[in-house]
């Protein structure tokens, strides 16, 4: 009987039991001992391995470069953009840029499929492999709830015939980087995630608690979108097809998992391209291009006139740096406190 603590135990005691899980889904993705269900990581069986992928992938146990980097991470170019097609603009959270870029990457054959986040039967967000324009469009829009997208990584890799792309929150992007390093260290063939688009994120909410909250407010129609208008609004907006509801942000904040507070990566510093809202400019995205791959994709999009592109206003840049910097310093402080 081995007395050594297993990798799974480390994850359970160090992350899950501490409410530090941000529901990225990476630990679930390539493992049968965990599953992702209704917005949370569920331990289904106990594994005895002392070392394993779950611990190596977890962005909380292995935080990304953001912890060491200052500012917004590596940036080659920065822009403000939106999709040229009106329908794409409307479907997207802000400007429809992410949808545009993914659809383009598919069309050009750079990737054969993309791991995105859609909405499942019960209304819960879930990871999904998308291969057509329509499938990609169906996943447009911010889910604001922990989706465990990477739990769908394994079936996506198996079903897909070529390189995969992925759109994820900063924790998911970090996890994808961790996954790549893990396989590289092991000298094993790498699951090919060729393109990582990261989304700006301050926090995401646990699905079941969110569902309960919304039902308590008397909202029973399916939710199509959430949004947080810029300060000083202090509001949380819930969009259904019929109506838009507004909840005070003070009621939403207590639901935020500690894991999100322990993360200081607001702009997905590990992605090829990071995309978020453009503060004060509704209908437009802020785009940070971080890698050569990202630059090439963006150039293609410009060349094909798929995007309206403008320079990023200075006040937006400053605001972004301030907000991201604040999240980073708070996160660093919290991590020092809880992670010994």
């Amino acid at each position, binding site marked *: 009987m081995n007395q050594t603590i297993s*990798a799974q135990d480390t994850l359970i005691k160090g992350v899950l039991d501490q409410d530090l899980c941000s529901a990225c889904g990476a630990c679930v993705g*390539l*493992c*049968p*001992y965990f*599953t992702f*269900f*209704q917005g*949370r990581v*569920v*331990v*289904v*069986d106990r*594994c*005895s*391995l002392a*070392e*394993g*992928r*779950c611990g190596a992938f977890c962005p909380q146990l292995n935080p990304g470069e953001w912890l060491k980097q200052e500012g917004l991470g590596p940036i080659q170019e920065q822009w403000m953009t939106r999709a040229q097609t009106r329908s794409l603009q409307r479907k997207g959270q802000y400007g429809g840029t992410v949808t545009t870029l993914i659809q383009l990457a598919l069309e050009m054959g750079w990737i054969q499929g993309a791991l995105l986040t859609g909405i499942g039967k019960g209304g819960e967000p879930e990871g999904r492999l998308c291969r057509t324009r329509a499938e990609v469009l169906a996943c447009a829009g911010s889910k604001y709830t922990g989706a465990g997208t990477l739990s769908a990584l394994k079936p996506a890799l198996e079903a897909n015939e070529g390189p995969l792309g992925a759109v994820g929150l900063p924790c998911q992007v970090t996890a994808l980087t961790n996954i790549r390093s893990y396989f590289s260290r092991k000298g094993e063939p790498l699951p090919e995630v060729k393109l990582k688009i990261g989304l700006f994120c301050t926090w995401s909410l646990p699905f079941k608690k969110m569902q309960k909250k919304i039902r308590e407010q008397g909202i029973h129609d399916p939710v199509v979108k959430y949004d947080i208008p810029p300060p000083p609004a202090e509001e949380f907006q819930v969009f259904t097809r019929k109506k838009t509801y507004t909840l005070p942000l003070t009621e939403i904040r207590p639901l935020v998992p500690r894991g999100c507070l322990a993360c200081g990566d607001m702009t997905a510093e590990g992605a090829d391209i990071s995309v978020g809202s453009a503060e004060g400019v509704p209908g437009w995205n802020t785009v940070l291009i971080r890698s050569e791959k990202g630059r090439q994709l963006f150039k293609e999009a410009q060349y094909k006139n798929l995007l309206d592109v403008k320079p990023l206003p200075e006040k937006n840049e400053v605001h972004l740096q301030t907000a991201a910097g604040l999240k980073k310093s708070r996160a660093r402080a919290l991590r020092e406190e809880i992670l010994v």
Partner: protein
Amino acid sequence: MSEVPDQLLMGNEAIARGALEAGISFAAGYPGNPSSEIIETLAKEAKNHRLYVEWSINEKVALEAAAAASFAGLRALATMKQNGVNVASDFITNLTLSGTGAGLVLVTCDDPSGISSTNEQDARFIARLADLPLLEPSSPQEALEMTRFAFDLSESIHNLVVLRSVSRLSHTRQNCRLGELRREDPRPRVDLNKVFHTFPVMPKHQIMHDKLRRAAEAGEQSPFNRYEGPDRPELMIITCGSGWDYSREAVELLGLGYRVGVVKLGMTWPLPVKWLRPWMEKVSKVLFIEEVDPFLEAGVKEWAAQIGPEIGTREFFGKESGHIPHWGEQTPDRVIEALTGILGLDYQSRESVYQEKISKRIQEMVPPREFGFCPGCPHRATYWAVKNALHLDGREGFVAGDIGCYTMGIGPTGFNQIKSVHAMGSGLGLLSGYGQLSPFGFSQPVISVVGDSTFFHAAIPALINLVHNQAKALILVLDNRATAMTGFQPHPGLETNVLGQAVPPIPVENLCASLGLPVTILDPFDLEPTSEQIFQALQETEGVRVLILRRPCALVQGREGGYPFRMQVNAERCLGEACGCNRYCSRVFRCPGLIWDEKSGRAQIDEVICVGCGVCTQVCPQKAIEKEERQAS
């Protein structure tokens, strides 16, 4: 040893033979280890005799049915294990007041050490409780003879007589000399000049005690009390039942034949005190050897205190003195230990060098052998689905278990899902409590699992209570079309009875429907859908839900042609011990057909053990386990 003995019979077979030699016409019981073979033997013989045999729905009904035969003038036998006596006890304590007609004998087969029971319980106390004569045979031959004696005794006093066996007697085979079969064909008739009720209670109570006194006389005269040893023993062992052989062997091994005498009593309630007295007068130290509780010990000590002023005090050793543990079955080694302790002797069963060597080797080398579900067992699949559903639900739900093969859900073979087991039907009984606790803030979902046979035996009243009192409950009926653990006896859900006759089966779903309960029938071999259904049922906030998980027991299926698949592990897809699997099939699912090949570092199918049910294909995270249809041979 001049005659050739007739047969090698086990205790239960000898009891059955004794009953036939006593001319019984009626036998009823409920399956329960170690008693089941009595009814099974009689059922096989039924066609050769004028004999009716049945497995009743429970032990109370079994005894009631046998009592009816007795009231009508037919000799009858009822059999059960120790827990069955508890179930029948309300009837017994009334029957002893009403009296009986033709000979009626209750056989209880107790299970010291609880080898196949949920408890370790001494059923002999029913004799004191209901003031009944109690007989304890010490060998299969004696069991045969005592059974005949018991019927004669019962008939002479018009009351029930209890014969008590234990596992080591019931299942021990030994030379048996058979007697003549009694052939009588009385026409059953209830004499309306007699009554079989308990009123007026007090006079009948006195009559009952008179009967007991007459039984004591018979006990005194019986050939079943024996002594072996010196004329003036220094220490006397008083024993009964299995203790007779153990005690004599211990005395022989220790070479104490000249110092220690062994007394065995055949009737242990009421005590044959007149027969015993001369021995008590001669000896100063007494050691009691008996199975389970200090029943005989207490009885003799009571009597010794009564006659104390006449014979003086004695030194008593046994369970109360700590020389024999209160728990566990008796063995010759326990008697040896008690004797060496009392007499201050040294005894080594083997030389200490060997003893040390062997203890060390065993400890280092020999792992335990866990029990588990058979390969192809539907319960493994059921508990897999339950485990997954409860984890997904995430509210710390658990399972209230019941009695059957599926009780093994308490262990790793059933993924440790069961958190409580008590008596037959207790799982559903508990739900009547848990199901009312929501208003107090109780939020843990509770699932009751109950087998098809257990369902008929004990769950129905509990189910009615759940419906009537509007409890919240989720019940899984594990319908494997068998009473498997005790040896595949028929039950009301099946199509034949113990005599092999066709009977109309009573489907569980029909019973539930009559209570207004909609039922979902699932195949537990479909792991995902079953888990999904259980999960959905867990989300309901009120009402009683019944899911029937129906799939034959693997052993039943084996007799009916087996399973259709030949299983194989695709070694290329198998990840073995690597992360992403870590031997998921053999380590977590734990079917004995899935083994681990050290050399190749891959899972493998043990072709001798695997039965080809195909369920494991759903478990492997790599889809490395493959199944193909067997060729018809």
